[in-house]
């Protein structure tokens, strides 16, 4: 079973004692803030969890793996995640 938004909303509802609708809105607000920040090119650092980084990739020559054709990959921005030491310990214990 995967953890989804619905379960997180349920936990917010229980622990803060808010109605389901407001709990959902709070989580959506939180997600929107994170997305907006990353969209602006700013990293999001959550101590004890990890860091969401925006990386600038330069143009490079790539290949279509299916056909083997050469092609140019345009410069783009990608997201990476760096796990914090604390989270790593927690996952491995």
């Amino acid at each position: 079973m995967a953890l989804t938004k619905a379960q997180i909303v349920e936990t917010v509802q229980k622990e803060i004692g808010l109605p389901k609708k407001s709990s959902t809105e709070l989580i959506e607000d939180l997600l929107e803030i994170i997305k907006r920040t990353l969209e602006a090119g700013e990293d999001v650092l959550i101590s004890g969890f990890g860091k969401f980084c925006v990386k600038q990739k330069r143009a490079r020559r790539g290949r279509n793996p299916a056909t083997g054709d050469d092609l140019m990959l345009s410069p783009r921005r990608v997201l990476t995640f760096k796990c914090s030491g604390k989270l790593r310990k927690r996952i491995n214990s």
Partner: protein
Amino acid sequence: MNKLELISALKNEANISKSEAAKVVQIFFDSMADAMSKGERVEIRGLCSFFVKKYKSYVGRNPKTGDKVIISPKKLPFFKSGKELKDRVDS
């Protein structure tokens, strides 16, 4: 942006108290960390997904000295950006 700035942004966006905003942020990241520590997948639509990858023990080398070192088995979270976020970051 760090966790405190995220809490403060949520407080302003949602018009809630700082302590409530702090709780929401804590619950969000704690739930994900909890799930991963149990080896569960995490799927947050539009944002990202995580799964825990298991690595077997292997013999590695210290890149500086060239010495052999035994790397014990480990688990690491794998991050995959969600489609919406991926598109927004690259636009």
